[in-house]
């Protein structure tokens, strides 16, 4: 029987999307979903049912976009049609919009596998609607506390999501994150991923941006055998014995090559595969592990996973390479302390003083509170930065932060206008020298818009 209401909802959503694009108003990545869901409240559930291979939901503070994009790429390389919210709209409306884009008016979906990144707080709702086949829990860092209040509250929402999951769903989680592992403990049989290379340790003392350092049972600080990134590492509680769970999927022999990417050996169930990726930094090793673990759970063979990872091209703004006025340039999203520290480390690994454009906005999607800039270890830039051009809505806050981090006066330039900031950065480059662009989320969209206007990159929703 034809469901007129469903058909009307889909038609309204698709029509609004076509209009928005035709009028050049944007990528139509959420409005169609919002409209259609208003007409058909159970739209997500109904469209999701049409995916023959089910859905994978990817959540976590850092790395959702890259992990989901990587997984969709691996899926496509395996020959599956994937529906994916690739523009990063990760609230229910954005996921609905992605599904609408692949739906016929009768509710049939052209796609086998759904790969969706999901906002941390929206996971219970999306999970209840889509009844996913796989859920990937990446990490929980302090990020946008103005929106979520406290990290523990996000963890509670994830616990609620896991409680409601279908019994046959696979939960894949980051064993190196004690808070995530504590959430996943609810659900025995989950599969873990993490780093299996103690040579990467950054000492037993955690970096400042670390969160979730206290045993969730005893309240005493975890003892770290190795801390890799923020509070991620090999931890155990000296009182109750809670420890990092054994790894099902691990990264061994990791070699970080700065901005150029990394190499490591993926170890899964006794099998090994050599991996290379152009995604820079240890945080991206975690993203590759998360996507690979999900792909393996979906039944894709290890060699096929490794081959797809090697050929993967990063999502916009996440290690994206481009050319600006003849100079190589890298756009590296930097939206919270742990991620920003990693970006700085990757950039400084090149070994010479850098020229950077740092763009800080405080819009809702960035987090209204810019206090987190003081949790980033900008001190590492103090004598390693030839020029830092600060821009965006909160350029002044950023400038003050760099001043107190010890950057010499002449190396900080305040230029709230983004286009001028880019020009100023480029103007300071010597021949062949790269420009590093480090923006928050909405600043990244804005910079990308400027670069697209000037023909340097394509707009986000077209790629």
């Amino acid at each position, binding site marked *: 029987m034809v469901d007129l209401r469903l058909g009307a909802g889909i038609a309204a959503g698709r029509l609004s999307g076509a209009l928005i694009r035709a009028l050049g108003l944007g990528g139509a990545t959420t409005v169609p979903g919002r409209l259609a869901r208003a007409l058909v409240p159970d739209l997500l559930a109904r469209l999701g049912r049409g995916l023959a291979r089910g859905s994978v939901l990817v959540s976590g503070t850092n790395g959702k976009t890259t992990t989901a994009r990587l997984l969709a790429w691996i899926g496509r390389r395996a020959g599956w049609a994937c529906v994916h919210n690739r523009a990063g709209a990760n609230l229910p409306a954005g996921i609905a919009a992605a599904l609408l884009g692949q739906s016929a008016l009768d509710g049939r979906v052209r796609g086998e596998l759904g790969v969706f990144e999901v906002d941390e707080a929206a996971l219970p709702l999306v999970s209840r609607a889509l009844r996913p086949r796989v859920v990937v829990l990446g990490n929980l860092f302090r990020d946008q506390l*103005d929106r979520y209040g406290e990290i523990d509250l996000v963890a509670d929402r994830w616990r609620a999501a896991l409680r409601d999951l279908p019994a046959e769903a696979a939960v894949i989680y980051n064993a190196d994150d004690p808070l995530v592992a504590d959430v996943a403990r609810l659900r025995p049989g989950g599969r873990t991923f993490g780093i299996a290379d103690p040579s990467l340790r950054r000492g037993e003392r955690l970096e400042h941006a670390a969160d979730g350092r206290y045993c969730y049972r005893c*309240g005493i600080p975890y003892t770290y055998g190795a801390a890799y990134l923020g509070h991620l590492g090999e931890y155990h509680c000296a009182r109750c014995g809670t420890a990092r769970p054994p790894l099902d999927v691990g990264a061994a022999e990791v070699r970080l090559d700065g901005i150029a990417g990394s190499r490591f050996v993926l170890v899964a169930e006794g099998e090994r595969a050599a991996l290379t990726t152009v995604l820079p930094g240890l945080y991206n090793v975690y993203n590759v592990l998360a996507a690979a673990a999900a792909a393996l759970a979906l039944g894709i063979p290890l060699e096929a996973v490794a081959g797809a990872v090697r050929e993967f091209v990063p999502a916009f703004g996440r290690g994206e390479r481009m050319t600006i006025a003849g100079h190589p340039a890298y756009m590296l999203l930097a939206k919270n302390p742990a991620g920003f520290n990693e970006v700085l480390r990757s950039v400084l690994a090149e070994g010479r003083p850098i020229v950077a454009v740092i763009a800080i906005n405080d819009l809702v999607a960035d987090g209204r509170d810019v206090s987190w800039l*003081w949790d980033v270890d900008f001190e590492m830039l103090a004598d390693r930065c030839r020029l830092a051009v600060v821009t965006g809505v909160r350029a*002044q806050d950023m400038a003050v932060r760099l001043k107190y981090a010890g950057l010499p006066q002449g190396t900080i330039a305040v230029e709230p206008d983004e286009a001028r900031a880019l020009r100023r950065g480029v103007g300071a480059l010597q021949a062949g020298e790269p420009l590093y662009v480090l923006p928050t989320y909405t600043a990244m969209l804005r910079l990308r818009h400027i670069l697209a206007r000037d023909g340097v990159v394509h707009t986000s929703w077209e790629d």
Partner: protein
Amino acid sequence: MGVDLRICHLYPDLLNLYGDRGNIAVLVRRARWRGIAVEVTEVPAGTPLRAGAHDLYFIGGGEDRQQALAARDLQAGKGEVLREAVEAGAVLLAVCGGYQLMGHFYRPSEGADLPGVGLLDLTTRHPGKGHPRLIGNTVVRWEPPGAGTPSTLVGFENHGGRTRLGPGVRPLGRVVIGGGNNGEDGTEGAVYRNAFGTYLHGPLLSKNPWFADHLIALALRRRHGEVPLVPLDDDLEAAAHHTALRRTR
């Protein structure tokens, strides 16, 4: 100059949620730029606090779990040392969760009260999960300590607890925009002797450098007498202050 400043950073491991350590960085740099020798001692939970060893104490904010751990540790001895230090004229800046713990108690939405140190005459209650947190850019009008000093403090607040002041403290300032102590009576923060509590969290001093200098001057006074603070070039800080004022409107 022979002038030195001894700063104590309490619970850098537990109460350090929103860039709170930025306040320490600002105090240290602003003192050093003036040739004042600064020593910062980090005192985590479990480490004793030596009586009389510091001129200025800083305590930041944390999530509920961490705050409970700090409350327990304060009861085990540090609270008494802090109370005596403040009575003797030492400077204290307590932010967010740390501010709540300087009062008589914190009553969570469920579970037992967290006892406070009681050096500030105030109490804090969480109104329950149904009530919104007070979150957002905040502007406070205060009485600046000197002529020529701006009369606004800007920052960001993010707290569930509602604080009520007793007669033994006065507010740090009046809320122009934001929730302040409780979202109702228009007060923000609390002052008793040289102890200051506030909900403006994170790197509050970076955008209110005149408040930072006020704290430094008070902290130096006790052992060194009146030390004139050389003016610094605060153009970037003032610009950040004005951006915050503009963003809050």
